[in-house]
């Protein structure tokens, strides 16, 4: 009997997505190319993000005049990258029939020059200059296969590509009186 599940993924559902993507790539594009979020200011440095039926807080550490009720926005970027790698590795491993027993991504980012954010400096920029992402994975697959899956994951990561390519941000403003 064929297994119905691998790495916590429903193989039938995954098969349907692969089939749809192969036969009707335009439908997959329509459904999954666009993403939305709304962020509400709560006062101070706190905000709450609403995404589909989900909500989460964003704050700053107390050292930065926040209340430290939750991670800050740049930390969420690291988490988003880690989660994206985790999703990608699971997808690529499952497509190859590789069982993942445990996995963690440890991330560490260094801003180019945080002083520019505070207006204390004109040098450099306040964005990340470098992010280290280390994958810890427990699997019986060979090191060669694991490395191939990791490379595929890095190459096809939406968040990874967002961070490594230029993204056009279209700022707009609406002022209420």
């Amino acid at each position, binding site marked *: 009997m064929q297994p119905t599940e691998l790495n916590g993924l429903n193989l039938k559902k995954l098969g349907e997505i692969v089939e749809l993507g192969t036969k009707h790539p335009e439908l997959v594009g329509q459904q999954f190319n666009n993403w939305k979020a709304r962020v509400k200011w709560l006062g101070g440095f706190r905000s709450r993000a609403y995404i589909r039926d989900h909500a989460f807080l964003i704050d700053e550490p107390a050292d930065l005049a926040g209340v430290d009720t939750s991670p800050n926005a740049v930390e969420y970027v690291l988490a988003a990258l880690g989660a994206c790698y985790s999703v990608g590795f699971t997808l690529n491993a499952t497509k190859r029939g590789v069982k993942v027993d*445990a996995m*963690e991504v*440890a991330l*560490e980012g260094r801003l180019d020059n945080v002083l520019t954010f505070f207006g204390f400096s004109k040098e450099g920029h306040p964005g990340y200059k470098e992010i280290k992402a280390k994958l*810890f994975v*427990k699997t019986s697959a060979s090191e060669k296969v694991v490395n191939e899956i990791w490379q595929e994951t890095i190459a096809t990561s939406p968040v990874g590509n967002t961070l490594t390519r230029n993204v056009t941000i279209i700022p707009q403003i609406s002022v209420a009186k």
Partner: protein
Amino acid sequence: MVGSWPRPDWLLGELKRKNSGEIGYEEFSAKADRAVLLSLKNQEDAGLDIVTDGEQRRDSFYSFVADKVAGIKLLTVSELIDYVEEKAMYERILRTLDVPAFAIKSPVAVGEIRRKTSLAADELRFLRKHTTRRIKVPLPGPFMLTRASWVEPLSRDAYRTREELAQAYVKLLHEEIIQLRDAGASFVQLDEPTLTEVVYGDANQTTFMCAAIMSKVDPKEELTFATGLINDAVKGITGIKIGVHICRGNWSRNDGALLTGDYSPLLPYLQEMKVNQLVLEFSTERAGSLSVFDGAADGKEIGLGVVNPRSDRVETTEEIVAKAKEATKYFDPSRIYLNPDCGFATFAEVPLNAAETAQRKLSNMAKAAIELRREYA
């Protein structure tokens, strides 16, 4: 020996099968018999008078209790982190050690503690069949078990407080020591490595020495608590030698990742412990000077650490003799025993030395003992 011996690769394969649930403890243990005999042969060939089974049936010196005690579950730090408040501290430690949270396991009290079977009677029974030498059985001490396994949100259903859980371990170990004595063990060693973490594990040096998941508490209170537990566990037991082993971590060859500091902050508590022998590191410089025991030996024996289990260099007989002679300034020569600083593979999957090197270290240690006996007879 302090306890552990490097496991052969094939045994590590079987251990993985056991940990994944593919085989049970009994099947694993039957396969481990051959590894125990190899470990024993190494010790006997080296000339040791007191031997252990090399902890070949254990995945670590303390987490093996999950196989033997009801109410204990082996959980990874990955599973535990949601229950601890100081998540940032654990993140710092994981980064320092450069390990994933899923790789570190700790036995956690999730129910009422009860021996399903003896912790080590099976190990002792097998060893007794195959050697006439005196047998030491290392057991995790009551403080270390409490410290490692008390995770309040998971443990409080069975025990209202950490102290209640500790008393359950005291009772369990008391019964265990008596059982091992009656089954022919010469020596039971209570491993209490986290005592040094209490003293030297500051915010930047906190470690997963034993995956101890708990908040920082006052060191003096903690040491008093630990001493009381050890004394309660051994209370009234005669007819067997009982020791306490203390080290500063033994999971890495990187000395920077291990703790540093001499025995002086521990000394008043060591003196209070109603045990026969203190099994202490002294080969590593991180343990400081023997001179802290000046006038403080208090009639106890010392298991003197004279070889480093984490180094490739084999200590010479002359060096070992010199270290023992230094100890005679503070301990009666008849009360000095030679041993390595710690086990050679405290954690099964992290052996600290090749069996061949470990054997050469033990061999020089045994030669040094012969020389010293001749001189001090």
